[in-house]
């Protein structure tokens, strides 16, 4: 760019900068920018919902236009109506209560055992030598492979479902507790010893809090498994629960109620995950990763 051109350009620019209308338009432009930022922020929030919304709309239109048979896939509105009907009659809550009760009882039994055994094998060397290889062997059997055996042992009543859920949630909690304890920084334990902490003090103040983040990872894995096993167990046979609700609806070709059941499983799963995340955020609030 030649000197002359540059001067000409500067001349043009300074001529632009002077008039009052330019400044005003600058302000207006600034306001527009803020609005644009706001819209962008809102857009960022809404964007993840766009695809699900679109899918549901297409689904609704396809159903109401009769492109999809109601028996294959009832319209979203029909599913909502079925949901409302079941909620009103109280039937829905009874089944949800029974299913959630089964799941949580199984989690308490299996998870509690996993936690206790993980703490033992993680903390005491000879207990690890005694038990860990056996536990690792059993771990490789998928819980669902036990179904025929479980039916032979317990029949098809509550005990069978509880047993399956307990077995499934046991392993993630056991393994993560064990590794959590083993991965506590030995430097911290040594520090605790030099500061005169007793064995129990070391355990309560250093080893358990150090293993907690790992234990919570195990809990989240277990929660996911818990619902999967519950669904399978309830589908095989049940006299009550969400599985019973859906299997019963299948007999009567009530596809909308089947969809309500599936949505319920999704909601309960999400709820459990939110709860586990909340625990993490509270217990690990010292951790930069959870702040």
């Amino acid at each position, binding site marked *: 760019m030649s000197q002359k051109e540059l001067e000409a350009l500067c001349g043009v620019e300074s001529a632009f900068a002077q008039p009052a209308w330019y400044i005003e338009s600058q302000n207006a432009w600034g306001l527009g920018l803020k609005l644009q930022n706001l819209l962008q922020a809102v857009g960022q929030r809404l964007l993840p919902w766009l695809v699900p919304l679109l899918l549901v709309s297409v689904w609704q239109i396809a159903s109401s236009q009769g492109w999809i048979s109601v028996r294959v896939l009832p319209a979203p509105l029909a599913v909502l109506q079925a949901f409302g009907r079941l909620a009103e009659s109280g039937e829905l809550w009874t089944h949800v209560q029974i299913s959630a009760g089964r799941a949580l009882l199984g989690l308490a039994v299996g998870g509690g055992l996993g936690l206790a055994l993980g703490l033992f094998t993680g903390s005491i060397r000879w207990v690890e030598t005694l038990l860990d290889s056996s536990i690792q062997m059993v771990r490789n059997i998928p819980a669902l492979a036990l179904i025929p055996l479980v039916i032979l042992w317990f029949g098809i009543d509550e005990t069978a479902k509880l047993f399956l859920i307990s077995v499934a949630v046991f392993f993630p909690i056991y393994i993560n507790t064990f590794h959590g304890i083993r991965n506590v*920084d030995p*430097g*911290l334990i*040594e*520090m*605790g*010893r*030099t*500061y*005169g*902490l007793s064995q129990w*003090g070391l355990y309560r*103040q*250093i080893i358990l*809090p*150090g293993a*907690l983040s790992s234990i919570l990872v195990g809990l989240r894995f277990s929660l996911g498994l818990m619902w999967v096993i519950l669904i399978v167990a309830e589908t095989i046979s049940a006299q009550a629960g969400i599985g019973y609700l859906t299997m019963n609806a299948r007999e009567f070709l009530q596809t909308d109620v089947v969809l309500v059941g599936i949505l319920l499983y999704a909601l309960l799963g999400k709820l459990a995950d939110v709860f586990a995340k909340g625990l993490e955020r509270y217990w*690990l*609030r*010292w*951790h*930069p990763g959870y702040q």
Partner: protein
Amino acid sequence: MTTTFTSTSISTTAGGVRLALQNLGKAYGQRQVLHNTQLTIEPGEFVAIVGRSGCGKSTLLRLVAGLETPTQGQLQVNAQEVQGLREDTRIMFQEARLLPWRRVLDNVALGLPDAQREAAARVLAQVGLGDRLNEWPAKLSGGQRQRVALARALVHNPRLLLLDEPLGALDALTRIEMHALIEQLWHDNGFTALLVTHDVQEAVALADRVILIEEGAIALDERIDLPRPRSRGDARFAALEKRILDRVLQHPDEEQPAHDTSWPGLPVHGVRWAV
């Protein structure tokens, strides 16, 4: 920063311990890490141990701490033979080793009865962190973490403070601040201090005596008679630092100049390469 520390003493009972290492040695299997070491440290003395990495200086500190048991010889505190961890001894490690799940105040109060939490807050104020009591350790800088670790050690009124390269990971400016802080607290409390470091300047700045360990044995015991607080720009400081540094860098197999053989209080095996 260095002027904000109060000079009131943390403890009521002042004084450090007399430490005596008698033929102390440590071997891991076949490998002899520390040979029969003879060393006496007077009450309230500040002794720095320097040496290349792997020379056995950290092992010496861990033996004195009671974290390791010697395979030969014995350790005496105030003329009594001791073994294992002791109440009157506290260690500051290379890493701060704070519990990340406890707030700063609770870290300092570790192992203290509940009634003495006030003391923890007071010591934290003395190391200049009186306003960060409720912070998580993850939010602190490296220097602040080491100051919390120092407060945690001092709240127990130790009579022997062991420092295992506690400032190795800090930047130069923070290190100089920490030197002043450690010197001040040592001066106020009168404990015996044993510092392991690979920084010769740090050793000369802080210690009454600098001891060089080479291949598991004491190779040099140099008294530093500079007045405190010491200025790093001082000609005598620089000369001492250079002399010790040159000696550290010298290979043990090389011939020694004649004037270096007159160190006080060394047993013959300590200078085996020189005689």
